[in-house]
C-alpha cells in the first residue's frame, strides 16, 4: 500500500486554504439613469417587494398587508422577498447596479443616499404630490437629496426614536433626584461622577464605547462636526478635547465598564444584571428588559433622550422606495403608499416596538397614553412619540461620517480615554485621519 505523503498534502491544503482566504470581492457595474416614471392611471401588474429581515417574526403582518392590497387591487400581484440584515445595503446597491432591484424596496438612510444618488429611485413627491402631508416633517425631509430641491426618494416607514432609560433605584442610591435625569452630555458626566463615588465599584454609570457615543455626544455639545461646505471635519475644538478629558477621568474612576471601551461588553446584559445605571436608549430595549429582567424593569425609568444644545433628537427611519424604471409605476407607488399608510403603520407598531413615521399614525391615542406614569414601557411609547414629532435632521450622523471615518475616530478616542495619548493629540489625530479619509473618498 502506498504511504500517504502528509507534507505534500499539507502543502496542497495550505495552498487551497490560502487561495480560498483571498477569494473576495467582485467588480460593480454602472447605475441606471433616466427620466422619472409616468403613471398610467392603471394599478395593475406583477411587482416585487423586498423587506429587511422581517421573516419569520412579522410574516403574518406583512403577508396580511399584501393580501389586503391584492384584494383591493385584484389586478396586482405582489411577490414578497425578505433578505437578512447582514450586508443588506451592499446587496441593494449591487442589485441596483445589476438592474435586478425589486420594484418596491425597503431602504434606510444610508442605502437611500446611494440609490438616489445613482438615479435609481423614483421621486415620490412627483408620483404622489399629496403624500407629504401624511408624514412627520423630520421623516419626510430625510429622504431628500442635497441639491435636488423638494424631490423625495422614499415613503418613510417605521422608526425607533432615541430615549433615555435609567435604573432609578441606583440613581436614587447615588443621591440623585430620580425626576431630574440628565438633559445634556455635561450633566450626564456630572451625574456619572456622583454615581461612581457612591457605587463602591458594584455598578457603573454608562457605556464608554466611542463608536456608539460619537458623533452624537459632540453634536449635543455644539461641537461643529463639519465645515459649512461639508467637505472638511472641524471637530478639533476645545469642547471635543474636554469630552475626551472627562471621559478619561470617568473611565479611570470606574464610571464605565472597562470592556465597554472597545464595544465588547453587552449593555443589555449589564443593565439587566443591575450593573449599569443608564441603559440603551431604545424603546425596544424597555420591552426586552420587561420580559427578561422584571426586577430591574420595576426600577427602570424613562425620560426624553439627552439632546443637549440641539434640543431634539435625530431620526433614522426605515422607508419604502420605488424603483425608477419599474414597469408598473402605478402599482408600485400604490403599494409603497399602502404599506406606509397610517393604519398599517399603527398595526405594525402593535406587533413590534416601532413607531409610525406617518403623522396620522402617530396621532393614534395609543402614542399619547402615559398610563399612571409608572410603567416604563407605556411611558417609553409616549416619550418616543413626542420626541419623533420634533425630530430634525441636524441631529443625525452626517453622511460624511462613514464607517471608515468612524473607525479612525474611535481608535484615537479609545487611546485618549485610556490615557495612552493626550486628549488634545487624540482629537487632533482623529480629525487629521478623518479628513484624509474624506479627501480620499471625495477623490474616488
Amino acid at each position: 500500500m502506498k504511504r500517504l505523503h502528509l507534507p505534500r498534502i499539507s502543502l496542497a491544503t495550505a495552498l487551497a486554504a490560502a487561495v480560498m482566504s483571498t477569494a473576495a470581492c467582485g467588480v460593480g457595474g454602472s447605475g441606471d439613469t433616466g427620466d422619472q416614471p409616468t403613471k398610467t392611471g392603471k394599478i395593475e401588474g406583477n411587482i416585487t417587494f423586498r423587506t429587511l429581515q422581517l421573516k419569520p417574526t412579522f410574516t403574518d403582518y406583512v403577508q396580511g398587508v399584501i393580501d389586503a392590497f391584492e384584494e383591493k387591487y385584484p389586478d396586482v400581484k405582489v411577490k414578497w422577498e425578505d433578505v437578512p440584515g447582514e450586508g443588506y445595503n451592499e446587496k441593494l446597491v449591487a442589485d441596483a447596479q445589476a438592474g435586478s432591484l425589486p420594484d418596491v424596496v425597503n431602504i434606510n438612510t444610508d442605502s437611500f443616499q446611494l440609490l438616489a444618488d445613482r438615479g435609481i429611485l423614483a421621486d415620490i413627491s412627483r408620483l404622489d404630490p399629496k403624500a407629504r402631508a401624511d408624514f412627520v416633517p423630520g421623516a419626510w425631509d430625510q429622504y431628500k437629496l442635497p441639491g435636488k430641491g423638494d424631490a423625495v426618494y422614499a415613503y418613510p416607514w417605521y422608526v425607533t426614536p432615541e430615549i433615555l432609560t435609567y435604573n432609578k433605584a441606583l440613581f436614587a442610591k447615588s443621591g440623585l433626584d430620580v425626576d431630574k435625569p440628565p438633559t445634556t452630555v455635561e450633566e450626564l458626566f456630572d451625574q456619572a461622577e456622583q454615581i461612581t463615588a457612591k457605587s463602591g465599584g458594584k455598578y457603573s454609570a454608562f457605556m464608554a464605547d466611542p463608536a456608539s457615543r460619537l458623533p452624537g455626544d459632540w453634536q449635543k455639545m455644539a461641537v461643529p462636526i463639519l465645515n459649512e461646505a461639508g467637505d472638511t471635519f472641524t471637530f478639533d475644538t476645545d469642547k471635543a478635547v474636554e469630552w475626551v478629558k472627562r471621559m478619561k477621568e470617568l473611565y479611570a474612576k470606574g464610571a464605565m465598564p472597562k470592556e465597554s471601551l472597545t464595544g465588547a461588553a453587552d449593555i443589555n446584559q449589564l443593565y439587566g444584571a443591575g450593573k449599569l445605571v443608564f441603559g440603551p436608549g431604545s424603546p425596544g430595549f424597555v420591552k426586552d428588559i420587561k420580559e427578561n429582567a422584571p426586577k430591574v424593569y420595576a426600577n427602570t425609568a424613562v425620560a426624553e433622550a439627552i439632546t443637549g444644545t440641539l434640543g431634539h433628537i435625530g431620526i433614522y427611519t426605515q422607508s419604502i422606495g420605488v424603483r425608477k424604471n419599474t414597469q408598473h409605476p402605478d402599482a408600485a407607488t400604490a403599494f409603497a403608499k399602502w404599506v406606509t399608510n397610517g393604519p398599517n403603520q399603527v398595526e405594525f407598531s402593535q406587533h413590534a416596538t416601532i413607531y409610525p413615521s406617518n403623522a396620522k399614525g402617530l396621532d393614534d391615542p395609543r402614542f399619547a397614553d402615559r398610563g399612571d406614569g409608572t410603567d416604563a414601557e407605556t411611558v417609553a411609547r409616549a416619550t418616543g412619540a413626542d420626541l419623533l414629532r420634533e425630530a430634525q435632521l441636524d441631529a443625525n450622523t452626517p453622511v460624511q461620517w462613514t464607517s471608515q471615518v468612524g473607525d479612525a475616530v474611535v481608535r484615537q478616542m479609545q487611546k485618549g480615554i485610556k490615557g495612552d495619548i493626550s486628549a488634545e493629540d487624540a482629537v487632533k489625530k482623529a480629525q487629521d485621519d478623518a479628513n484624509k479619509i474624506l479627501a480620499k473618498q471625495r477623490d474616488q
Partner: protein
Amino acid sequence: METATGLVHRRWWVPYLFLLPGLGMVVLFSLWPFVNTVILSFTDAQILRGGTFVGFDNYTRALDDPDFYTALTNSVLYTAVVVPALVFLPLALAVLVQKNIPGIGFFRSAFYTPVIASAVVVGLIWQWVLRSDGLVNTVFLQLKFISDPIPFLTDSTVLLFSAMAVTIWKGLGYYMVFYLAALGNVPATLYEAAALDGAGAVRRFFSITVPSVKPMMLLVGTLSAISALRVFTEIYILGGESGGPGGDARTLPFMIREVGLGFAGESGYASAVSILLFLLTLVFSLLGHRLSKGDER
C-alpha cells in the same frame, strides 16, 4: 464484443465527467474569486464600483501604511506563539488519552467539545472568564495575587495573548484527533522492544512517538499556521469591533475586513492586503514543505 481495454480507450473522458461538478465548484467559488482578487489588487476599485488600473499603488500604499505593519506584526506574533503550542500540546494530550482505561472516552469527548462549540458561545464564556470583573480577576483579587484587575481584554498586547489562549484552547481537541490517528499507526512492538531494552516513558516518547508522528506534526504545524494567520473571530469577540483599544490588536484579516467593507470599502486595497496575506501564508506553507523534504532525505 468490446473488451474492457476498448472501453477504457473509448470512454477515457468518463472519469473527467465525474470530476466536472466538483471541479466546476472549485473554479467558480475558489479559483475565479482568487484570480479576481489578484486583478482587483491592481485597481482602485471600491465596493460599489469597478476600478481603473493603478499598477502596484495598492502594494506600495500597504508598505507605507502603519496600520498594515501593526496588523502584520500581530499576525506573525500570533502565528509564532500559537503554532508551537498547537503542535506540541495536542500531541501530549493525545498520548494521555490514547490509553485504554475506564472512562477515557469522557475525556476524549471533553477535550473535543470546544471544537464544536459556536464562536459566539466561546466568546461569551471567555469574556465572562477574562473581563475586569470576570472569574480569573475575581479569584486573583480575592486571593490577593493582584491589587488591580489584569487588563485581559482592555490592553492590546494582553488582549492578543488572551485571544491566542482561546485559539489554542479551541485547537487542542481538534489536533488531538489528528495525533490519535497517527499514534494508532505506530506499531506497539516498537514500544515493547524499547521497554525491554530499559527505555523509560520519557525516552520512549522522544525516541519512538515523536519520530513516528513527525509528518503529522508538520501537517498540524502548517494547518495551524494557516488558521493563525487568518485569525479574526477571537479578536473580534474579545476586543470588539475596533480590534482592541485603539485598534492595536488588529490582525491582517481584521484589517482586510475593515478597509474592504462598508459603502466606502476599498476593494482594491483590501485585495492587495489579501494577496500579501496569501504570500505570507505561502511562506509558512513552503517552510513546512521544506522541513518535510529535509526529513525525507
